[in-house]
């Protein structure tokens, strides 16, 4: 299982990659592994929406369960990855690459300080 060092993580298993003032958001390798085969990705936000840290931006459904994806930061949604609607299995095969979910223009970059780095995320106590 991989946890790239250049990403920030949430306890709810989202990641964010910051490129300038834009954050790219997805779910982690651990999350996709726990969910198993993903069959649907549905967005609850669209381009231009203003979101707050902790808002639900998408729902990911697998053969086992449905899980909400929460915004790691606040800001304005500048893109959603519509390709996942047709190819949800990408979440399993490339969670940090092709399976990014939303891009957000950060309104409060200091929120990044609340997030975990790769080591801290991996060190989370999990019952497994």
């Amino acid at each position: 299982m991989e946890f790239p060092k250049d990403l920030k993580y949430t306890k709810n298993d989202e990641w964010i990659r910051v490129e300038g003032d834009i954050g790219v958001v997805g779910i982690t390798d651990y999350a996709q592994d726990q969910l198993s085969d993903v069959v649907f990705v549905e967005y609850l936000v669209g381009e231009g929406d203003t979101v707050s840290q902790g808002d639900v931006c998408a729902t990911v459904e697998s053969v086992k369960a449905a899980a909400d994806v929460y915004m790691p930061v606040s800001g304005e949604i500048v893109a959603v990855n519509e390709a996942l609607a047709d190819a949800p299995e990408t979440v399993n095969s490339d969670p940090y690459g092709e399976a990014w979910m939303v891009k957000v223009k950060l309104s409060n970059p200091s929120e990044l300080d609340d997030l975990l780095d790769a080591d801290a995320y991996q060190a989370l106590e999990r019952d497994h």
Partner: protein
Amino acid sequence: MTEYSTPKPVEPTVYDLSSPGRVGHTFPQCDVPLADFPAGMTRDDLPLPELSEVDVVRHYTRLSQLNHGVDTGFYPLGSCTMKYNPKINEEMARLPGFTQIHPFQPIETVQGALALMYHTQEWLKAISGFDAVSLQPAAGAHGELTGVLIIRAYHHACGDEKRTKMLIPDSAHGTNPASSAMSGLQVVEIPSDARGNVDLEALRQHCDDTLAGLMITNPNTLGLFDENLAEVCELVHQAGGLVYGDGANLNALMGIARPADYGIDVLHFNLHKTFSTPHGGGGPGSGPVGVTAELAQFLPGPIVDVVDEGDQDEPPLYGLVMPEKSIGRVKSFWGHFGVIVRAFTYMIMLGEEGLRAASEHAVLNANYLQARLRDTYHIPYDRICMHEFVAEGRWPDAPEVHALDISKRLMDFGFHPPTNYFPLIVHEALMIEPTETESKETLDAFADALIQIAEEAHTNPEILKTAPHNTPFGRLDEVKAARDLVLCCWVPEKSGF
């Protein structure tokens, strides 16, 4: 190993069996003048299958043999209480006095049916400790929605409209958040503590003046009686909230503990679980709701009541009444009457002592299975369980095996799998509910199968990964089944699809 003797090959569809011109009926000669439909209103063709009666009977009999039901085998589907449905229930529901009546008949002519509904309400009140019951809701989740609407109506009647927050423990039934959201409430999840009880610290943090209530499933979905229950209810009440009880697991409690006594304000009953009526596709469900005296006026109606006490010459007259501040109707007519007849039959056949014995045996059977499997399967919340328990379907030294593989393999032994992957707080959950009617032999055969499967998981995992092997179909492609929603085998040409 028991071979599962299923007819093969798999049955063709009724359309595949069709033969042009074959019929299973003859109409009598027409004895009224023929009239033509107006031009343009008739269709050119009607592609229905054409078969003889015996073709149809054999087709559906063969299909029924491909199915697994509680009449054909053990069905330990946790949380669903797939208990045996006694056949006398069906006999009673088919009595002409119940089948040959109409909901709009004058009440004087349907006193027997109304008396049955009244006494069902009374039995449910006695079992739960509540003051009033409505038989209206059509199923469990419908009962939940009804209960949450009652809680909402109560707060509104008190002028307390800021109470919009519903707390739901993570060990509650999965429908609870949906019922709250449907009622316009905001759902907040409360974690469980290490013993599988509601985490009191987390609960306290949310007990404020925006609290509408808490929805609790007891025993919870871990099959555990919440040891903090009295305190949980007290905290919610102190904050001005009400406690909703999900009665889906009432099968553990009949005649032993009454939900109203431990602080529940509203509860739904699942007649299709606890009271032995068929489930879902096997016949409609029924989810009556019971409430405390304070909430009685908000119940959906109509409710059956004695409208004239009668005297030594005249029996009481039953009628239908609408509670004063009722949330309204939630179902057409008088609920699922045929289901209520079956549940009432079950109650009076067993009686007070029988109902208590049913709960005791359900709990005993679950604990017996838990004890037999404890050394083979990890049980994360391992204490005396109620009517069900949750094991983990995984082993550190068999990393490729999942709960799903264990369940698929169980089908080779002729058993219905347990509930998988629920509750979410247990990894690779296998939720096992044997119910009260199963013999020690059946329980042992099931435990033996699970122990053998655990052995195979370590020595021959492939046999699990490729299971089931002895069923009409092998492993299904669940991803395709979820994504590729082709729900009919035949699409009318003119439909445009």
